């Protein structure tokens, strides 16, 4: 191929000579990257100052440069120029200041009104990863660019049309309206909602959504989607109406909005949609977190809402097994009310799961200080003690291992012994159960579900059995009240 074939061409949309491209080495194929793609290049930048002063070079650094195309992160000339290149192509881009750093320049290297010359080599590109974790779980390919700058914000009312595909089969094709942040309530998968947040009006795109951002390990039988299935969607943003930003609201409005979010959260909580409920409660916090309130009435209201929100988030997090976050929110709640029983109780629960037996126990004890009759807390303390003991046992065993001879002897003895199920419990003593409620009553007190029983009078553990013998009255709850209690949500487990 001769040099003559590669004439310098003006590649600006309005042909103003702002970016002149000359191919130095032709690339392969016909594909070029599209806006949003992550591209990898090598480049050498020089000033058009007669001396061709080099101001930057990725080659000198020995590392390819990676950037998002068409996002305005790099100078305009590049967003235009690289989008015309093919894989493996090397091109020279001559960029007028209007397409580079303009009148301000970029001190200290690029003076004002400088024309820049780049030699760029394009290596590869991949679709735009729009997942928050950047783990490749939501890849977007924009097929039609949207209008303007706006994206829907949280709480915006959004209308989209989408077609969902699993392999070749279309499983969903619908137009749907939803509140941003609550798409789950309309059956919209996380991947699509996440993408909608980043779309502009009129935009159309294709999405590759990994299972974790769609139907996960459960799959979706009604759509014939097996577990762990990656899906494809075509989404069009039809219209959206932005919600008022919190800074646009005064405190009264914020309190009102917080109240709305709270009741929405409670609704979702009742539907056992804990993730969504949590989001709503978190909104309450976001509205009021940094608000300084002057009026006494509002102050009390804010405090009450913040306390409830933190407590409820803590509970949602317990439900979704995010123990650490749950604990954090309990701590926040306790800042608002240092003697909050639920705060301590939930904190203790989270700590138990985090295996901080000591802290958990201390918090359960705090509950007991405030509410001496709280059976669940009493049980909690015992559970912690039990675990601490187990730990000690484990430690003991570990040390025993050091004296291998002794350990071997012990092993021999242990294997001879019949398995009685007590080995796990450690030094469990039935006398400790004195004065305790049977398990079913304890569960009721804090709203945990009773494990299903195969035989009606078999107790869940030896502890209650023993208790039954000692305090027969307590162990037999009135049938009517028992029924009634299992149906209504007990206090410890409902949103505040």
């Amino acid at each position, binding site marked *: 191929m001769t040099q003559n074939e590669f004439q310098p061409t003006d590649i600006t949309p309005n042909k103003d000579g702002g970016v002149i491209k000359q191919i130095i080495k032709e690339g392969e194929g016909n594909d070029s990257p599209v806006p949003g793609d992550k591209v990898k290049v090598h480049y050498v930048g020089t000033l058009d100052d007669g001396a061709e002063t080099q101001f*930057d070079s990725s080659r000198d*650094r020995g590392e390819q440069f990676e950037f998002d195309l068409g996002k*305005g*992160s790099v100078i305009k000339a590049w967003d235009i120029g690289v989008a015309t290149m093919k894989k493996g192509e090397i091109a020279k881009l001559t960029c007028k200041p209007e397409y580079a*750093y303009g009148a*301000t320049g*970029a001190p200290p290297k690029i003076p004002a009104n400088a024309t820049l010359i780049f030699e760029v080599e394009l290596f590869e590109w991949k679709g735009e990863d729009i997942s*928050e974790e950047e783990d490749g779980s939501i890849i977007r390919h924009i097929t039609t660019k949207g209008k303007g700058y706006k994206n829907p914000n949280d709480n915006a009312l959004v209308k989209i049309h989408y077609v969902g595909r699993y392999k070749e089969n279309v499983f969903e094709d619908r137009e749907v309206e939803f509140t941003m942040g609550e798409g789950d309530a309309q059956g919209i998968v996380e991947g699509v909602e996440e993408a909608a947040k980043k779309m502009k009006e009129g935009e159309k795109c294709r999405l590759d959504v990994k299972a974790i951002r769609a139907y996960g390990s459960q799959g979706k039988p009604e759509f014939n989607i097996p577990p762990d299935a990656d899906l494809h969607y075509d989404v069009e943003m039809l219209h959206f109406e932005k919600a008022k930003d919190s800074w646009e609201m005064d405190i009264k409005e914020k309190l009102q909005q917080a109240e709305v979010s709270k009741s929405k959260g409670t609704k979702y909580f009742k539907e056992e949609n804990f993730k969504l409920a949590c989001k709503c409660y978190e909104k309450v916090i976001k509205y009021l977190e940094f608000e300084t309130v002057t009026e006494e009435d509002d102050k009390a209201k804010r405090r009450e809402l913040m306390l409830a929100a933190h407590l409820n988030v803590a509970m949602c997090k317990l439900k979704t097994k995010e123990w650490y976050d749950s604990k954090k929110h309990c701590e926040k709640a306790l800042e608002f009310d240092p003697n909050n029983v639920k705060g301590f109780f939930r904190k203790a629960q989270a700590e138990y799961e985090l295996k901080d037996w000591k802290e958990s126990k201390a918090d359960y004890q705090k509950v007991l200080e405030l509410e001496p009759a709280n059976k669940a807390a009493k049980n909690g303390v015992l559970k912690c003690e039990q675990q601490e003991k187990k730990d000690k046992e484990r430690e003991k065993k570990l040390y025993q291992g050091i004296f291998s001879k002794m350990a071997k002897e012990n092993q021999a003895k242990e294997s001879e012994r019949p398995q009685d199920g007590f080995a796990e419990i450690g030094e469990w003593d039935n006398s400790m159960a004195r004065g305790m409620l049977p398990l079913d009553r304890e569960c009721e007190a804090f709203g945990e579900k009773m494990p299903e029983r195969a035989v009606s009078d078999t107790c869940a553990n030896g502890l209650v059995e023993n208790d039954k013998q000692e305090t027969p009255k307590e162990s037999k709850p009135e049938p009517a009240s028992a029924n009634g209690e299992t149906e209504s949500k007990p206090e410890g487990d409902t949103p505040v």
Partner: protein
Amino acid sequence: MNKPPCFDNIDFNTMDPMEISADSERTLKQIKECVQFKDSKGLKTFILEHKLAHTNIFWEVTSELVNSMTHENLNNHTYFFESCERCLNYIVENGNPKEILLALLEQADCFKDDEKFKVILSNVQTVLLKLPAKRHHSLDITMETLSAHIEALPALSDHDLEGEEWKLLDLDPEVSRTHDVVKAYLLFLKPFIWEVSTKNSETDRTNRESQIKMLTGYLLRLLHHPLLYLHMRFNPKEEAEKKKMYGRELGEMLIDHLTQLCPSFWKLIDTEKKKHYLRKKGKQSQAERKRAVDHDDIVKDWKKHDDVSELSLACLLYLVLKEYLGIDNFPAIFTNQYLLQYCLPYIKLLLEVDHSFVKFKGLYLLQTLVYNILPGSLQAEDLEQDIYKEVLQLLIHIDDFLKMKNQELRQLCVTIFPVYVNMFSLAGRYRLFEIVFRTCHHAGMIGYTIGLYKGEVDKALRQDRPDRHYVGRHLQNILKLVTGIPNGATTDLLDNSDRIFAVLNFLRYLTLRDAPNVNITGIWDYYPVIEKDFFGPSETCNRVVQRSLQA
């Protein structure tokens, strides 16, 4: 070079092991006595002249010697200190490197004596360089121990220096101590950085990635503590002849090291940024915690140098983008706007630290980036990214700065504020003004902002068709926000005077500029409301004050 020790006077082959042991014990006792009585001559006789060959007591001798090489001895018993130094050199030269390394590190665990620390640094360096190439773990342990000394350096106090006073900063003993120790630490690192340097053509960087990562981590940690709290500004044009401040000197050394380790600072920062993001999101951290539970001790050890604080990154961005240190390792292809947006979260962090040198770094970086952006190039929609509003809040809450009584910081804020607002389109500016009026309670700041808004209205009125954000409904909205008298007639006029005067000035301008029969701004439609809500209460206030003065 590794010379085999010369054993002139003892023939171990013919000696009974018991005898050797007894002989060692005796020698050790004698050495200890010499150390105790600071007997330089004796010390040199036993170790250097007799060419001490009892390797079994090297560990203890090392401990004894290092323990005597203190600041006090250097000042008051210089000759003894030097003797110890020479003896230690002999031990380091002739001992088993691994053993001597541990013996030295053992002495590094108290954070009091910097002289001792420096002695340890230079000897550890010698020992490590003697160890074979595969010493990653030794270097790792060493870094862990030595960086603990740096971490234990006390936080530098904020002297709140005004005007030219910062030039006196290096006289602060805390600062000169920090400089002394950190400089020794950086010099210590030099050969290990060279081993994996991009400038070293003999190195195989791909195989030594763990060393690169580890060293990078420790260097970045230095940026947060203690470098962030030092003065690092330097103007090559004005101050070319002058001696550089301690902070600057360290900054330059550190960046020089870093450039040898990382070809692209951008990639370095971006990778760390993502890690932080994930950690904040808590997704990764749950997995990490699980791992931590599973392999308790292992993970903890490796985590340490992996944990780079965001303030370290902020300090790096400051050094690169404001001080232009290591600028060649930063791509010159990003738009100014993108860089600003990228740095804002870090600027926010810097501004939130309650230390004037740190706040200055944040403001200088912000100033540099904001000045590179042409007025009107950002859209109102860009404000949807909360960070723009958050940094604005920090800028306008001068009250907090005032608490520190640092006039310079305050002035810098006031200089940056209008440029910051002007980066946006007219609609964007209007929204920023609105945010200020809604959220700021500082009368001076509001007064100043009213002046800026007035300027925009004036510019708008010069156009044939004024922008809608500066007339009519929008103007009324702003007037409503600024003319309110919060506590009615009981308002303290003096506290609010800056605001009230600015409002009066603005109203005067509007009424003169826009005649009632033209009424292009719509001010005359709104006038009755102003009379009722603003003039009324202010007059009452005034009368109350007058009456109380008369009484």
